């Protein structure tokens, strides 16, 4: 579904991604782990061109999305993204947050958009917050709404950029639960996270990144129980120790 070939990204002098070759299959849940500064988020943000790659190809169902001829907005419609800082639109109600893009981009009628929104809000258990404004919500609620907002565009892939890192510990669970359900429903997902429990339980494949490269990748139990590479061992040892 997504094929990444020799992806490089430079921020001025800083070489953040040093040649990444990856493939994400339909329905697969890929979890990206690694120390901070390893390029995980940059890699994820390249997938919908929030960062413009310096070099390489990103093929989405065969089309190179980096090619300027292809409409990036059309591509982004198919790719939902969830951010660490939620980034809900604070000047709109929850309902408007969720219905805005289906109405404006897909020209969906008000009634239909509302229907879609309430179905999603029901699924995450927040239909009663439809008329609230984002800053009346807790962090966990905000992030669940952000997921619903992305899903309202019926994306084919969901990208998660450290979705639980800005949450209070007691709210991490409710967000991970929504993500787990999503994965079970067969959504293709790429998740950058520090939640090793989630990676183990939900991930089909785990990528370990360090210094701009994918050092090691495998099914979760192998990565966590039998890491091959010294740096993976070191990292897994540290994070699992913290548990």
């Amino acid at each position: 579904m997504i094929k990444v070939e020799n992806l490089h990204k430079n921020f001025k002098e800083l070489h953040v991604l040093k040649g990444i070759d990856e493939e994400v299959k339909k329905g697969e849940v890929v979890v990206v782990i690694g120390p901070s500064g390893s390029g995980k988020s940059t890699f994820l943000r390249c997938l919908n061109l929030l960062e413009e790659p310096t070099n390489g190809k990103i093929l989405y169902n065969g089309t190179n999305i980096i090619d300027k001829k292809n409409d990036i907005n059309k591509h982004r419609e198919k790719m939902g993204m969830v951010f660490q800082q939620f980034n809900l639109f604070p000047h709109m109600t929850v309902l408007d947050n969720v219905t805005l893009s289906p109405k404006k981009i897909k020209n969906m009628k008000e009634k239909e958009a509302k229907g879609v929104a309430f179905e999603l809000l029901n699924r995450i258990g927040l239909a009663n917050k439809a008329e609230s404004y984002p800053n009346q919500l807790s962090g966990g609620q905000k992030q669940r709404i952000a997921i619903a907002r992305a899903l309202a565009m019926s994306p084919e892939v969901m990208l998660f950029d450290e979705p639980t890192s800005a949450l209070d510990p007691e709210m991490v669970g409710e967000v991970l639960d929504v993500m787990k359900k999503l994965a079970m429903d067969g959504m293709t997902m790429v998740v950058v996270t520090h939640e090793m429990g989630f990676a183990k339980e939900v991930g089909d494949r785990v990528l370990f990144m360090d210094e701009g490269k994918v050092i090691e990748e495998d099914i979760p139990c192998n990565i966590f129980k039998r890491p091959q590479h010294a740096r993976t061992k070191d990292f897994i040892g540290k994070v699992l120790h913290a548990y």
Partner: protein
Amino acid sequence: MDFSFLTRYYTMYLTGARNTILLALFSVLLGVIFGIALALMRLSKNPILKGFAASYIEFVRGTPLLVQLYIIYYGLPQVTGMRFPDLFAGIIALTFNSAAYIAEIIRAGILSIDKGQMEAARSLGMPYNMAMKHIIIPQAFKNILPALGNEFIVVIKESAIVSIIGIYDIMRTANIVRGNTYRPFEPLIVAAIMYFIITFTLSNLMRMAERRLRTGD
């Protein structure tokens, strides 16, 4: 102090007030429209648009309004070959002037919005202009409302300067009444009070608008 001249001249003052309000209203409305355009140009990646907007803003901020007014008043007919009503020249001059200040206010407002907002909008598939219109500018406006209200009040006060090209605004009325009655002082007091009533009403309206926009906070 003797204000008995008012019985004779109050209609003139009211006409003056109407013209001052018309002048300020149109200048501010057009100023906001041009100001948004200038701010977006200045924030764009296109070096020509950016350079134009930046130099325009610097020029307007760096020259006196009186000079700008004369340039428009005497220059416009010469360049276009057409005669414009005085009020029109006044509105153009004030618009061009306030647009530059409003552009800077709007630019600051847009820059004050967290870049995650633009990213979230773009990640949903919104094109840049749509994201600006629905996400960034509404939030920016809320933040800059106090500064914008300030600029509106400045425009109303600065509009007194157009009396110099013969527009019958409050200031010009005061000058005429001064000449006719040989009273140098009282007609100005009346003008000052009228300006104050207009600006004070406006600042209260702006405060109400701010409160309404704060519902989401």
